[in-house]
């Protein structure tokens, strides 16, 4: 009987991402949870595995003109244009609120130039309450004709390596899915010293107003997110998990705990919930509860038994 009763114990949901311990493997995806405040009346921030804040840059950014979002079948396109209040204001005005919670704060950041990446990382890793950095490399490189940092192995290596040198914090690199070989990009990132990889960022798409013959987003193109992209995201996480040893944070279209489990099974050590927050402000909590319930039902005692357990 003693043996049986252990099945009713809470399963272990804690995972490690580099030196970061998470009480559970469910985070918010950058840009979909503001700076935490916005959702704090809907859920208990303390229950989250980690909170990843909206992407920050050294200088505040106004972002793109409107319309910035448009719905698509089972998805949405966004072209917010990385609007943000800047790292300084974030540290001053937003971080104190986030420090109240036991949930680790991961700061997503980006730059137009390698120098801006370095400066951002330096400033952030001195700030009390920032537990890890997530580098968004899906943005254009001003110095190299605006081509995307994260879609070229060379610029990717360069920018990750230099950021690695200036920070002791766990460094997560967030990959762009708009590439031929995501496994290759992941290896580059691993070789450049990153502690973890998160993926996928949004997939570039566009929609057209057929009467006006104009793009429906002011920015012409935008990033596709939501359930529509989930099969692509799962495939990419699987490819990356075969390519590297460092932990993976999987995301892209996760709406329910079932979707999240697909990511764990193909190798993600943690997941992030993005667009789902918009539809259900408690999506993160529902995913956590759902995973726990599933594990109880299936008599799985540790989430680590699920991670990378795909049978092929």
């Amino acid at each position, binding site marked *: 009987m003693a043996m049986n009763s252990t099945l009713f114990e809470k399963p272990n949901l804690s995972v490690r991402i580099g030196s970061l311990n998470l009480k559970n493997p469910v985070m918010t995806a950058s840009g979909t949870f503001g700076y935490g405040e916005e959702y704090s009346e809907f859920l208990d921030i303390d229950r989250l595995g980690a909170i990843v804040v909206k992407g920050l840059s050294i200088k505040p950014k106004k972002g793109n003109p*409107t*319309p910035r979002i448009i*719905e698509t079948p*089972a998805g949405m396109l966004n072209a917010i244009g990385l609007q943000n209040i800047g790292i300084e204001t974030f540290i001053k005005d937003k971080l104190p609120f986030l420090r109240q919670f036991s949930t680790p704060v991961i700061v997503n950041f980006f730059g137009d130039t390698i120098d801006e990446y370095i400066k951002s990382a330096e400033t952030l890793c001195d700030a009390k309450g920032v537990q890890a950095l997530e580098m968004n490399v899906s943005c254009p490189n001003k110095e190299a004709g605006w081509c995307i940092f994260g879609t070229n192995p060379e610029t990717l290596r360069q920018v990750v390596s230099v950021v690695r040198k200036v920070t002791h914090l766990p460094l997560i690199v967030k990959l762009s899915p708009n590439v031929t070989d995501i496994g290759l990009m992941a290896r580059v990132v691993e070789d450049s010293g990153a502690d973890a990889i998160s993926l996928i960022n949004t997939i570039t798409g566009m929609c057209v107003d057929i009467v006006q013959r104009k793009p429906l987003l002011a920015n012409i193109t935008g990033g596709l997110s939501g*359930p529509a992209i989930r099969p692509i995201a799962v495939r990419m996480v699987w490819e990356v998990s075969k390519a590297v040893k460092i932990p993976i944070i999987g995301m892209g279209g996760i709406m329910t705990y079932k979707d999240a489990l697909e990511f764990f099974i193909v190798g993600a050590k943690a997941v992030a919930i993005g667009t789902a927050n*918009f*539809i259900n402000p408690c999506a993160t909590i529902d995913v956590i509860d759902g995973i726990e319930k599933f594990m109880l039902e299936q008599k799985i005692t540790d989430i680590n038994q699920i991670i990378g357990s795909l049978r092929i």
Partner: protein
Amino acid sequence: MKIRPLAETIEPQCGQFYMLQSCDNYDPLLKRPLSIFNFDEKYLQFLFRIKGKGTSYLSKVKAGDIIHLIGPLGNGYLEPKGDFIIVAGGIGIASLMPLLVKFRKKAILFFGARNSNELLMVDAAYDMAINSYVSTDDGSIGYKGLITDLLTDFIKSNHYSKELPIYCCGSIPMFKTLKSIIERHNMTCYASIEEYMACGVGACLGCVVKIKSDEEGGFSYKRVCKEGPVFNLRDLIWQ
């Protein structure tokens, strides 16, 4: 549509809105913003026009169905201290009705729509206003023409009216005309505006509008769902 909340809710303010579930699966994906139209201890009530997939889904919801919604959201109207003017364009009346209900016989109502079919709840509104002016584009009810024409005439002939704050909700062309009116007469106008929304709670930055500010470029982007949906019409910038 009348909804009975299953959990305890905060009492909505005039001009606030809710995000309502728009389908059973993932297409359409996002919730839809609707202004609170009426409420009491038991029900929340919404008035909406069937526009596309989301509102058509909502129109099929039956008594007994459960739908998810988030709210009340946003900053409603700064409540009037005395008499005031209401300018409603079409379905814009949904957002303004709580003001008429709460401040009975305090409002002078200007209500315009394309035709008599889109002049919803006009009788109820009429009863609660001090005075009502109605127009339709096709002349099927009231004055044939723009409601802002009636407003201009009214202001010209009633000097005291320039002291009254205007509360409005309608289309962008209407807002633009109103803006030139209030600037000419140095009046105040609170406008509830619409933008495409994803989250409704200020997290996605999808619903922003340009608001005059001292920042570089002379404007900053403000979130309609958080800092709005009601803004001072004077501060709004349209390209």
